[in-house]
């Protein structure tokens, strides 16, 4: 097994790099869309700080539709769109487009859940002190739920590692691509096992890191 790893060192290095690239890049953009979307869903809900029932229903639908399409189908369906955005439909950058589209609604729900964990009394108190909605979001909602948001970030990052491996099936590159090409199409089980071990290691590191950060920044448990 070790021989196999050393022989194919460059391939595994590149695969790992591509997987990490896809994960980090798409997580970043998924949050760029998903974080405001999650805040919007939370604040527009009945009883929220800016209730808007119709907007809330529409947003809920968009998120649910996004989340119900199986990723592999979404990826294929988005090929024309991907081509339009990045100019090609193969490779890690192309895979990021469908990863972001798939992850953004997922992130929105995670953010919404984190915000819902907050005690409503704190928001009420901020209101009595004359906080505007913008100040409530920036100075109460987000800072108070940071530990939970960080835990959500670890969940979405790890979900995206899984998705990015699936992207390998349609030529997205990364460790998933290697596993499918060598392990599945060429019956080289050794290579497949190495990719799996690499993925396990990456997931473990990310989980430990985020858990550590979340615990470190949470002032409720000192």
């Amino acid at each position, binding site marked *: 097994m070790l021989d196999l790893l050393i022989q194919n060192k460059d391939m595994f290095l590149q695969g790992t790099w591509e997987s990490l690239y896809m994960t980090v890049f798409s997580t970043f953009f998924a949050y760029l869309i998903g974080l405001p979307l999650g805040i919007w869903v939370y604040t527009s809900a009945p009883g929220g700080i800016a209730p808007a029932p119709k907007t809330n229903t529409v947003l809920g639908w968009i998120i649910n539709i996004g989340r119900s399409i199986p990723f592999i189908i979404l990826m294929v369906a988005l090929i024309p769109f991907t081509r339009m955005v990045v100019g090609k439909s193969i490779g890690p950058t192309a895979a990021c487009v469908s990863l972001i589209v798939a992850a953004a609604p997922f992130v929105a729900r995670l953010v919404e859940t984190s915000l819902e964990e907050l*005690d409503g*009394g*704190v928001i*009420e*108190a*901020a*209101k*009595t*002190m*004359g*906080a*505007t909605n913008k*100040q409530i979001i920036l*100075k*109460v909602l987000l*800072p*108070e739920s*940071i*530990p939970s948001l960080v835990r959500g970030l670890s969940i979405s990052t790890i979900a995206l590692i899984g998705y990015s491996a699936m992207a390998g099936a349609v030529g997205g590159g990364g460790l998933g691509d290697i596993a499918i090409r060598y392990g599945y199409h060429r019956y080289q089980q050794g290579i497949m096992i190495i990719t799996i071990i690499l993925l396990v290691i990456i997931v473990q590191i990310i989980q430990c890191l985020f858990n550590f950060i979340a615990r470190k*920044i*949470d*002032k*409720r*448990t*000192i």
Partner: protein
Amino acid sequence: MIKINNLTKVFDSADSEVTALKGIDLHVHKGDIYGIIGMSGAGKSTLLRCIALLENPTEGSIEVNGSDISTLKGKELIQHRKQIGVIFQGYNLLMQRTVRDNVAFPLELSNVSKEEIKKTTDRLLEIVGLGDKADFYPSQLSGGQKQRVAIARALANDPKVLLCDEPTSALDSLTTKSILELLKEINKNLGVTIIIITHEIGVVKSICNKVAVIDSGSFVETGDTKKILTDPESPITRLLLGMTEVKG
């Protein structure tokens, strides 16, 4: 200073109407410590939420220094909320901020300068006796200390009125006494008018000069604490005073 006329609040839901308050009249003078006492579900909290401008009354008016505040919207509403400090049974502190930053919060909202915030928070923490706890987090404090932080925070905007929603209901009797002492001091030294919502007759006895007894959304008795406690007219007051047996 605060004049409430015929305040009525009806909660509309899909299939039922609940009248939480009906025809409340209340007159609080500057410097009063006004107790509003009643049993659970009597409408105490709704009344407080209306005065704190968290709830719009269905009918009636709430005048503070002569102007009706119950119909305010937008910027004016926010401006007026800053003139009323509120403390809660559950403290409602920001758990991820230090004690000092909690007290600084209302000042940050008004874009007060950093030096000014430092000065004000130092002064307020001194008043509530937490000068040495400025860099602690709320999770490191006891219930009484948390309520002290909440009081300092509520005073940061220099309010004319301090509304207290069951401020001592989560505290033991000794801590309750010390918090009530603090409120009394604040009333005397800073000239802040205080309204206390409570279900504990002890709170009213120890610091309120006036009291209103609320039941099923209306006042059954209002007036000087001494008079009402010694010579209660309404059966509800007698019940709260423990002068009659509770049936059922």
